[in-house]
C-alpha cells in the first residue's frame, strides 16, 4: 500500500469518525424531537424483530411501514379464519410495531383476542369446561393487555379505554363492572358526553356505588343539562338514583316533572327502564313504588302493568297512546329547559 493510499485512508477514517462523533447527538436529538411529535414510531421491541419476516423487514428498511402493516392486517384474515389465535396475536404484534400510532390496529387486534378468540374458547366443545373457562379468561386478559399497550402509545385516544370498558361490562363475556368503570372513567376524562354517560351507566350497575353514581350524575347535569336530559336512560337512571334512601339529607330531591314531559311519558320511560334494568342490573331504588303510584293515577290497563302482565322487553309510544286513550297529563316545566 503506497503512502498516499494510506494517508487517504487515515484522513477519510478520521474525518468520518470525527464528524460522526459531532453529528451523533444532533441526530439523536432530532430523532427524539420527531418521536415526541409521533412522526417517528418508538423503537421496535427485540422480540418483534425476531418475529418479523422478510416482507416486514423490507418494509422497515424501505420506509413502507404503514403499507406493510396494512397488507399484513388484511392477510391476518387467514389466521382468523383458521382460528390460529397465537399466530394472529403474533401478527398483530408486528402490525402494531410497524404502525403503532394507528388506533385501528390496536382496536382490531384487541377485538380478535378478547372477542373472537375468547368466544371460540368458550364455545369449544372439544375442551373440558374448566379448560374452556381458563382459555377464555386468558384471551380476555390478552385482549385487555393489547388494548392497554395501544393506550400507552396513544394516550390521547379514549376509544381504546372505551373498548376495555365495553369488554368488562359485556354481559355475554365475564363481566367485571368495577374494572369496566375504571376504564370508562378514563375515557370520560376526554370530555365526551357519550363517554361520560357510559361511565355513569356502569356506575349505576355496581352495587354499593349508587351514591357515587348519583354525585357523578349531578356533576353531568350541572355541566350540560339539556344534552344529558335529552337521553331517556340518563333521566331514568338519575330519577332512580335520586330515590336512594341512603343519600345524604342535603341531596336534591328530584320530582318526575323535572325529568319527564308528562306522567304518561314518565310511566312509559320508567316501564321500559325497568325492563332494561332487569337485563343490565341498573340500580332501581324506589322505581316499583313510583310505577305503582302512576298505575293508579293513570288507570293503566293490566296488559301494560308489569306487576300483573309481567315485563315486556319494551313498549313503544304508539302502544301507550292506543292503550291509554287519554289526554297527556303535562307537567308545567319542560325537563329540557336548562336552569
Amino acid at each position: 500500500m503506497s503512502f498516499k493510499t494510506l494517508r487517504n485512508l487515515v484522513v477519510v477514517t478520521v474525518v468520518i469518525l470525527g464528524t460522526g462523533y459531532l453529528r451523533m447527538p444532533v441526530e439523536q436529538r432530532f430523532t427524539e424531537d420527531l418521536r415526541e411529535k409521533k412522526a417517528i414510531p418508538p423503537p421496535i421491541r427485540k422480540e418483534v424483530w425476531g418475529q418479523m419476516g422478510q416482507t416486514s423487514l423490507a418494509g422497515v428498511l424501505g420506509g413502507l411501514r404503514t403499507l406493510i402493516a396494512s397488507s399484513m392486517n388484511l392477510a391476518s384474515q387467514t389466521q382468523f379464519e383458521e382460528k390460529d389465535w397465537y399466530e394472529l396475536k403474533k401478527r398483530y404484534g408486528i402490525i402494531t410495531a410497524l404502525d403503532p400510532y394507528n388506533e385501528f390496529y390496536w382496536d382490531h387486534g384487541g377485538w380478535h383476542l378478547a372477542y373472537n378468540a375468547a368466544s371460540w374458547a368458550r364455545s369449544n366443545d372439544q375442551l373440558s369446561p374448566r379448560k374452556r373457562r381458563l382459555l377464555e379468561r386468558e384471551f380476555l386478559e390478552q385482549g385487555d393487555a393489547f388494548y392497554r399497550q395501544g393506550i400507552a402509545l396513544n394516550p390521547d385516544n379514549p376509544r381504546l379505554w372505551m373498548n376495555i370498558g365495553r369488554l368488562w361490562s359485556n354481559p355475554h363475556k365475564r363481566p367485571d363492572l368495577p374494572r369496566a368503570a375504571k376504564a370508562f372513567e378514563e375515557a370520560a376524562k376526554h370530555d365526551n358526553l357519550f363517554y361520560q354517560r357510559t361511565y355513569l351507566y356502569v356506575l349505576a350497575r355496581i352495587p354499593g356505588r349508587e351514591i357515587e353514581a348519583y354525585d357523578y350524575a349531578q356533576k353531568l347535569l350541572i355541566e350540560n343539562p339539556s344534552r344529558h336530559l335529552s337521553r331517556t336512560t340518563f333521566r331514568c337512571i338519575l330519577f332512580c338514583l335520586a330515590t336512594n334512601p341512603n343519600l345524604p339529607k342535603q341531596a336534591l330531591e328530584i320530582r318526575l316533572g323535572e325529568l319527564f314531559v308528562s306522567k304518561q311519558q314518565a310511566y312509559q320511560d320508567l316501564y321500559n327502564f325497568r325492563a332494561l334494568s332487569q337485563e343490565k342490573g341498573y340500580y332501581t331504588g324506589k322505581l316499583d313504588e313510583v310505577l305503582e303510584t302512576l298505575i293508579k293515577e293513570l288507570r293503566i290497563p293490566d296488559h301494560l302493568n308489569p306487576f300483573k302482565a309481567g315485563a315486556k322487553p319494551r313498549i313503544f309510544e304508539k302502544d301507550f297512546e292506543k292503550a291509554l286513550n287519554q289526554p297527556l297529563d303535562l307537567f308545567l316545566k319542560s325537563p329540557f329547559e336548562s336552569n
Partner: protein
Amino acid sequence: MARGQAELAKHGPTWILQYGVIAHFFKACILAAVALLISTFSTSTLFTIAAGVMVWIIGAFQSIARDGLFVDSFAGETPSLADKILSTIISLIFPDFQLFESIADASVRAQEILGDDILKLGGLTLIYLAIYTVLSWFVFADKEF
C-alpha cells in the same frame, strides 16, 4: 361529517406529502455522495454499487444502534459491552437513513410535519453531502490520468 372530510383531505396531495418526496430526494442525494466517495477507492463499478447498497441497508439500522447508546431500549434491556462497541462504530460511520424514511412514512400517514423539520433534515443532508464530497475531492485530487 366535517371531521371525516377533513381527515380525508389530510390524506390527499398536501404539502406534507411533498415533504415525504423531499425526504426521499435528500436520502438519494446522500447515497449518491456515498457512492461517489466509494468510487474514489473502488476499482470496479460493481463494487461501488454493492458497497453503496450495503451502506444503505446499514444506514437503515443506524438509528437502532444509536438508540441503544442514548436511550433504554423499548424492552428495557441494557446493551452489553460488545453491543455498545458495535453500535458506536455503526453510529459514527454510517449515515442515519431511518430519519429520512420516518419523515416519508409520517407524511404518508398525514402526520403533522413542520417545515422546520424539513429544514433540519435539509441541513443534515447538506452536512452529509459536504463531508462525503470534500472527502471524495481530497482522495480524487491525487489521482493521475
